[in-house]
């Protein structure tokens, strides 16, 4: 499985910090702050993993999830939800998400989830 990972989250600092953390853990990380940029990256790359925020400025994480899965069924997808978003998490699993994690994100815990999907 490719170690290439896509982070889609509109908070630049979140992307910066998580990129740093995952890079140190031997992932090749790319990030996008909106759905449009994420789709562009998906056209050009094959991602083994994706970490998708549900709430994005131009679309939601489940839209991206569906596109990613239709391109590569093997991609492992973690959806990030907010406190109280259980319904969204359930919907995401139905649509093919491999896991979901709720904010706040502890990077070590997220890494355990990702490694568990290999």
């Amino acid at each position: 499985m490719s170690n290439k990972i896509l982070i889609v989250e509109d908070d630049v600092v979140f992307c910066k910090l998580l990129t740093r953390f995952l890079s140190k853990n031997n992932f090749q990380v790319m990030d996008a702050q909106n759905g449009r940029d994420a789709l562009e990256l998906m056209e050009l790359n094959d991602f083994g993993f994706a970490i998708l925020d549900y709430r994005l400025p131009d679309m939601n994480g489940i839209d991206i999830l569906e596109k990613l899965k239709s391109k590569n069924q093997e991609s492992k997808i973690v959806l990030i939800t907010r406190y109280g978003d259980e319904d969204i998490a359930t919907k995401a699993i139905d649509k093919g998400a491999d896991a979901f994690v709720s904010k706040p994100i502890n990077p070590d815990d997220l890494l355990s989830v990702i490694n568990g999907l290999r």
Partner: protein
Amino acid sequence: MKLSISKNVHLVEPGDFEPTDHWYPRVLNSNIHPLVSYFLNLTHEQMVERYHRLHPQSDPETIKKIMSYQPQYFRWAGTDLMHVTNHEGNRKLTVIETNSCPSGQKSMPLLDLNVEQGGYKRLIEKTFKPMVDAYPEKGSLAVIYDKNPMENIGYAATVADVFGEDVFLAKFDKDDQDPPVKFDEGKMYVRNEVEKWVEIRAAFRYVTQEPWTRIPGNPKTLLLNPIEACLAGGRNKEVASAAYDRFNEEFKDKGISIFTPDTYRKVKYSELDHHFDLLGGSMVIKVPDSNAGQGVYTVVNKNELEHAKSEIDPNDDYLVQQLIHSNYSKGLDPNKSWYHVGTIPDSKGRSFAFDLRLMMHATEEGMRPLAVYSRKSRFPLNKELPEDMNSWEVYGTNLSVKGEDGWSYADERLMLFDVRNFGQLGLGVDELIKGFVQSTMAVYAIDQNAIQTFGQRESISNFTSSIQKS
């Protein structure tokens, strides 16, 4: 670290500081120039004595008083200066602007290789912590910001380390309709992971954009810097200019003054043509609260004047300054004209205009220099400007570049004060001392203006006066 405890809020924990994330890559591998290190370690007494030797008419006691002054509002500042000369070759460091919430740590090589957090730590340990320790308010600590995540994550991690507690890192964006920061009766709150508001006792503020009404004056939460520092001139060139004039009037008998290009305030749009003629066909037009090189127009001909006028609001007032010229010309007034000294010519004979950013902070002993770097212009001073090129390319030193995907910076024009770059600037210790003294005077002027405008800063006046007495 806990990411996204709520929208645009992260919780930074002790031990989270990562040097590679808080300096430009080029800076991580640089070594500070020995002259710069020497300058940064000079005592106030050494600098006062040297400044007096360079400016014999200046009163050393007054310079010492200003250098050891304890600002109440403006305890962290960054001055932009330019190295200029006149017809007779008298060189000066002239103040272009003084900023509250200045950037600069990410461009500063380590002064002490054994202190991994460099200037971040000096600022938090020697300026922020003593203020917070002397302040009785309850609550957590926060860093609030609206840009420059590279430095602000670094500040949050340093605050966490220095205080030994978790720190909220919250983005306070001017366009955010539901920001994670709020003030209630002067107290600041940050939204946490269960959508509850957490009380903040003290915050490091890197909020650089209007509207300033987002942050109240005289808050219960201790802020470095408080908003008054911006309003009194730290983010308004017009107000700062008036403060400099008052300073110069007050200290004219002491042989010291803040050097700035000749400045005209509250110039109406309809008066710009008149000022263009008055200044001999060149000038700089500034939007008073402009920032990061935006809203500043260098004008060297009618076309550029018309272009500038087409970009600005006809209903506003502007600050107009004389242009610091690129090259000597016989037609210019020998009593008033200033020229860029520029960088040492490179192997192709090109010399570039540059500025010098000097970041300072208030410590127990008074103002101290903290970080310093330069930025040079795109096009050389001593080559003929192509007809289709704007004079900003010769005079503008800002590194921000606006592209299709947002803002980036022109790394190749950043001049570090390291072994490799510093010599190219042609500056010596004397110029750094002159620049520092000019900067302390500018900070003094703006802080005094804040006190006159807003009154004593009650929350820390006991703290500053106890340091001053000791």
